[in-house]
């Protein structure tokens, strides 16, 4: 089994990809000097604001930071179900 694992190891991208993903997220927070819970509270507040106008699909709501060169972009996606107005 050990031998098989060794042969097939190169198929498993998890360690490298995991390091890269952790790294990216960590550096976005570092560069913005953003405490870890800050983003979650922003998300909550934004959802609260949007929810006053629309009913949103919380299941598919996406909210995260993406890297753009050495800067970060806040990407939020709130699928709207219907207007509350």
């Amino acid at each position, binding site marked *: 089994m050990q031998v098989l694992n060794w042969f097939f190891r190169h198929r498993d991208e998890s360690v490298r990809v995991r390091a890269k993903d952790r790294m990216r997220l960590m*550096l976005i927070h570092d560069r913005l000097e953003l405490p870890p819970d800050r983003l979650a509270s922003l998300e909550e507040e934004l959802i609260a604001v949007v929810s006053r106008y629309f009913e949103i699909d919380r299941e598919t709501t996406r909210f995260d930071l993406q890297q753009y060169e050495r800067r970060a972009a806040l990407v939020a996606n709130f699928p709207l179900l219907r207007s509350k107005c």
Partner: protein
Amino acid sequence: MSGRVIVITSGKGGVGKTTASANIGVALATTGVSVALVDMDIGLRNLDILMGLENRVVYNLVDVIEERCKLRQALVKDKRLPNLCLLPAAQTRDKTAVNADQMKTLCTELKSMFDFVIVDSPAGIESGFQNAIAGADEGVIITTPEMSAVRDADRIIGLIEARKDEIKDHRLVINRIRPQMVKTNDMMSVEDVLEILSVKLLGIVPEDEEIIISTNKGEPVSGTDNVRSGLAYRNIARRLRGEDVPFMDLDALNNTWVTKLVKFFTPVRA
């Protein structure tokens, strides 16, 4: 003459700053230009050992700054290359012995004497680092493909970019890459690190036991033929001189007869 002051820095300790400084210095001097190596790691002097010059040190950088000797008296000539000199750090003092203005003055004087002034910065982001980058025109950031080193490199890049009026250019060297581990997806690749840091690449240096041997001998690998890390540093020196040198093919380093045999028996990737 107005040379270029290049600071070698990393943030994290132990990633190979001093080794890189010694090797880039030797590689540049081998191309014919005059080079001064400046050890700014005051209190933790090491560059003299890597150069094999530890027995020739008389005066040091702090002696020059405190005017106990002339700059020329403190410069130690390399054993092999007459156009390469070392300005050693003081071993018995600490980082507070020098300030940024004194460093700028020193760099200006060195620039008038040499084509290249390579400054080996101490680890960290405190005063020692701030002084080391004080007189620099360019920066070379050293990292390894490990998360902690990359994180610290990112911090350093941020600090260097904040001074872009003085430090006109900065590039990254990825040190101690292990091609086999990248291939098995156990280590971040050069592309991964570049994507994360969004910075220009100056060079890739593969992990090499020859580095340890060369340190013990006091002869940097870039002065030796047929050593892969030495070739990597010679390529870096050529790029610093403006030459367009292709980056090392790490997969080619993997093609030993053992890996060829393994590849032969390994099922082809879907």
